[in-house]
């Protein structure tokens, strides 16, 4: 009887260890980057697109709520259009994830904008802009 529990416990521990090992090493992609989207974009298909909001690309029309900006990842850029108010953390030089569809007219129609922030918590005095590489690393989820 005791042997049953020892063996059973060992089997469970083994399965859990495997699961955790696989979970940590698995490099799943949670969203596509602009380069990946450019490489194989299907018009009308839903994507999650993650990248950096390029400096100088943000245009917002408060009256019509038209939001235009460009997401980039260092190799490719994707123009994004959205209707609505952006979240507070959203801004140029920051990371963002947008949900929406690729339009046949050559832009990304976003239905939802989510600001993605890095896991750095900085006191005001050390407020240096997070490096581009660091942010991309965070965006890809490799920072775990």
């Amino acid at each position, binding site marked *: 009887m005791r042997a049953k529990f020892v063996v059973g416990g060992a089997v469970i521990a083994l399965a859990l260890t495997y*699961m*955790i090992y696989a979970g940590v090493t698995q490099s799943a992609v*949670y969203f596509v980057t602009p380069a990946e989207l450019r490489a194989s974009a299907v018009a009308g298909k839903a994507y999650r697109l993650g990248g950096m909001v390029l400096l100088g690309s943000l245009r917002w029309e408060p009256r019509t709520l038209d939001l235009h900006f460009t997401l980039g990842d260092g190799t490719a850029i994707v123009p994004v259009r959205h209707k609505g108010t952006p*979240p507070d*953390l959203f801004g140029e030089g920051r990371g963002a994830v947008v949900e929406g569809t690729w339009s046949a007219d050559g832009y990304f129609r976003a239905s*939802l904008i*989510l600001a993605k922030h890095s896991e750095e*918590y900085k*006191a005001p005095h050390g407020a240096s802009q997070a490096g581009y590489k660091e942010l991309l690393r965070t965006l890809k989820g490799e920072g775990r």
Partner: protein
Amino acid sequence: MTSRERALGWLAGLGLTAGLVMAFGVAPREATQGNVQRIMYLHVPAILVAYLAFGVVLVASVIYLWGRAAGADRLAHASAEVGVVFTGINIATGAIWGKPTWGTWWTWDARLTSVSIMFVIYLGYLLLRAMIEDRERAARFAAVLGIVAALDIPLVHFSVYWWRTLHQPPTLLRPGSPPMDPTFVLALMVNLAAFMLLYGYFTAKRVRLLRQEEEVFA
């Protein structure tokens, strides 16, 4: 009320006060997020304590099935209840923080989804306990469910993680030095300690009440 329980209660109250002082008085305003980041001092300790509580449920359930000690069953029951309360706080504060930061109250992001599934599983656990009248049978069934639930949590976590994620990686649990200003870490630790004390107080009280209930109705 036992004196130990009373002391634990006062300690928890003291800790919570210290936690508030740390969160609002000592910790500086965060650079990118602004003051809304102060929600973190509630949000993170709540989930860590909830994990602790559900871990206690697992251990107590195994002990109960092994030796059928009624005390282990009461501990599992109390701990699950308190854990659900703390999970609820974590989810609610997360949503409130998410609105100004991400721009949405809720998103089917990995961490949010897996924590909410955990919440539902343990709500089911409490429901099962509530629906079985026979005390001994409720204890046995709940112990089995407590074990299944705890083993299921890593599976839920990774499956949902692969499914989709948006939540930043956990800052404190990361190997190496946390990328956080030491003041933030200190404030977080004080709040974590306060929540642990509160967990201890609630659980001790609930265990005693469960025992008294059994004595009265025995």
